């Protein structure tokens, strides 16, 4: 070939990336959608400044609305890398949400208000209680899976039913309200933009990335998922790794729950969070994590959340009816896995 010598060959580079990096195709799809999104947004503003601010506002909205799923998907990545799955996240989200609301409620029904604690101390206690509840629920799931030897699918399916149903029963007559200041956690406006949830998400994503790459625990997560037996025979406490993974999942659902309560200022215990488990799993899978365990990445999951979010936004912009949007989500999941290079035996 003639043009191989004159420096950078884009086609060759592209082909190499496409075949060697499983996530490259996903990143390309995201880029393509981002371009389509710009076109769909239109150029009917008076000045470039107006256009840019509209463009940025659109992006902040996308990210903000997906921060909850984004945070849950981070925990789900670890769970799936160990070869497990967590179907309970949507239900534990409402259970934790109910607990938080009971603590922060400033009306007479609030648990802390009754003993005279209100305002910021009450919010801090409420948040801590929510995180603790998440941790305990996650640890309990982990114990069911390791000590009880119940397959993750079944253990978390059970937890999903239990958490949602018990929460609904308990909250039938109680109707706690979320005080205004608490909503600032997610809705604090800085420079007229409310991007706090994005910050929380990215910070947690960074921590999770760091844990997955640079701690013994993180590497053990991959080892256990790839070859549980070899890991056990190497002296790794397999059960502890698995329990920790579900506990972290629970903790992150706690964080997501705080954000959800704060952002919306209320919670519909019957419907909130339903379908979150599947959205999170979809993002993880689109992000190149293997359902069989052992392979995956936090970066991929962030990419997976983004691609689904941007696609939703794009469909909204071009006026695809809401009922059809889920179908596109399905297409993305199947398409992404088809495009990602499959390992040959």
């Amino acid at each position, binding site marked *: 070939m003639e043009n191989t010598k004159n420096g950078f060959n884009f086609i060759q580079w592209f082909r190499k990336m496409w075949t060697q990096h499983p996530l490259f195709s996903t990143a390309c799809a995201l880029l393509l959608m981002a371009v389509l999104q710009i076109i769909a947004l239109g150029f009917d503003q008076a000045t470039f400044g107006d256009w840019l601010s509209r463009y940025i506002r659109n992006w902040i909205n996308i990210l903000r609305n997906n921060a909850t799923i984004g945070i849950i998907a981070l925990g789900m990545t670890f769970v799936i890398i160990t070869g497990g799955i967590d179907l309970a996240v949507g239900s534990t989200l409402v259970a934790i949400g109910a607990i938080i609301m009971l603590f922060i409620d400033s009306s007479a029904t609030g648990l802390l208000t009754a003993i005279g604690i209100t305002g910021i101390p009450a919010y801090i206690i409420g948040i801590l209680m929510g995180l603790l509840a998440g941790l305990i629920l996650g640890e309990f799931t982990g114990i069911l899976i390791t000590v009880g030897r119940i397959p993750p699918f079944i253990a978390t399916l059970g937890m999903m039913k239990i958490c949602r149903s018990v929460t609904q029963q308990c909250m039938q007559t109680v109707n706690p309200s979320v005080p205004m200041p608490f909503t600032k956690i997610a809705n604090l406006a800085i420079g007229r933009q409310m991007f706090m949830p994005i910050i929380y998400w990215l910070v947690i994503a960074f921590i999770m990335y760091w844990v997955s790459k*640079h*701690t013994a625990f993180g590497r*053990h997560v*991959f080892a256990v998922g790839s070859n549980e*037996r*070899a890991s*056990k*025979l*190497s002296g790794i406490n397999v059960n502890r790794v698995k329990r920790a993974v579900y506990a972290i999942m629970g903790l992150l659902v706690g964080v997501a729950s705080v954000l959800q309560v704060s952002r919306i200022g209320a919670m519909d215990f019957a419907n909130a969070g339903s379908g979150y488990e599947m959205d999170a799993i979809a993002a993880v899978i689109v992000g190149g994590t293997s359902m069989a365990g052992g392979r995956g990445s936090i970066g991929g999951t962030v990419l997976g959340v983004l691609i689904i979010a941007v696609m939703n936004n794009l469909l909204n912009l071009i006026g695809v009816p809401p009922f059809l949007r889920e179908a596109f989500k399905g297409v993305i999941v199947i398409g992404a896995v088809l495009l990602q290079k499959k390992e040959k035996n």
Partner: protein
Amino acid sequence: MNLRMTGISKSFGANLVLDKVSFSLSGGEIIALLGENGAGKSTLMNILGGVISSDEGTIEIDGKEISFANPRESLDAGIAFIHQELNLINDLAIYENLFIGREIRNRWGVLDKKAMIDKTREVFDGMGIDLDPEAMVRTLDASYKQIVEISRAMMMDARIVIMDEPTTSLTETEISRVFSFMRTLKSHGVGLIFISHKLNEVMEICDRYTVLRDGHMISSGTIDSVDTDALAKMMVGHDVVEEKRAVHKSGDIVFSASSVSDGKYFNDISFSVRSGEVVGFTGLLGDGRSELFLSLFGAGTPYSGSVEVSGKPVTMHNPQEAVSLGIGYVPRNRKENGIVKDLDILENGSLVTMGMRKKGLFLDSKRIEEDFEKEKKELSIKMGNETDPITSLSGGNQQKVVLAKWLSADPRILILDNPTQGVDVGAKEEIYTIISDLADKGVAVIVLSSEAHEIVRTSSRCYVMYHGRILTELEGEGLNEQEIMRWATGAAI
């Protein structure tokens, strides 16, 4: 039906595994096919079973030359290969297993259960088998499962049955049940090929024998004309070259067990190992040595009896405890138990010590890399980049990485189960040298192997196991391949 295989040769790459081997069998006789691991028995039987094809030689049945392209054609010619791992579906009934893939349907296309059960009963009656065709295969013991599998072959009109080490996982009663079934088959004119290492069983059931060694046919004749000692000698060969064995200065007893049993795989095991000593454990498949050490490492069945490490009584509940006591364990079956295929070379080589090498919350990557670099040099691991996948390495180098992960933890006791499994000849020698060097450094090394020459080559002392028990301890002059073979095959009892 008469089978004659003449001048069969087969090589894998440059490795000649069968060199002009001939083999014959008539209907109504049981012939023993004997030889050490790697002698070529499996290759020869795989050629007969249509699993692989030969490079040279002919197969004749009743004087007609035939060739098999696949196992199906071999089966159609009346040859049934009963593998060690039985091909039965546990959750189906016996008759369903017998008719799987060839079910009898009535004219509506619905399964004709009654016809199938009746046919099964007919076959069982003819063979004198007392089994309910509707019983679930799961409820059968190992001997009956074999009988069912052979019956399935009989229903497909098999006239020759190859049985690959059928008795290894059976109890005494089960063995006698299988033997009486084999005699029934024989009286029906079926020819049987019995592959076994257990020479006393061979003496009991077989009419003739054929011994292979290193791909050559060594001897063939009637069982009446030989005894077990003679057969053991033929399998090993008379001209065993006594290879130089390293002598190590051994120290105090660091690992010992007395009357250890799990009630399933091993019974009443007592042994002791000194620091700086290489001790072998050998026996045939199913002797329980792997299960024994898996339990002693805390990853197998729970055991009773007492175990001492450096004079202190210990009980291993999980591998972490064993690791903290300075025990390392390189398991058999590297692919399933040794390597983690999604982690890179460096991570595989530091899997054991990763949790101990920390800087605050994070991994001390520099220390981990230094550790691995050291082991890489010492074990002369040939590899590219340390972030390459572990699967990019050859078998020998993968095994060295598994060794490296243990050596970086500085074990005082190292258990090696089949350390040269799936490793080429050159790497084998290197691993023997590594074992010897480790002993020189004062590590107590325990080598588990079914290859007698490997034990002779590496160990200064060896325990021979049979059916979950230690039969004898060999040392000095007594530690040679023939003696090991005599005890391991049960010929000595």
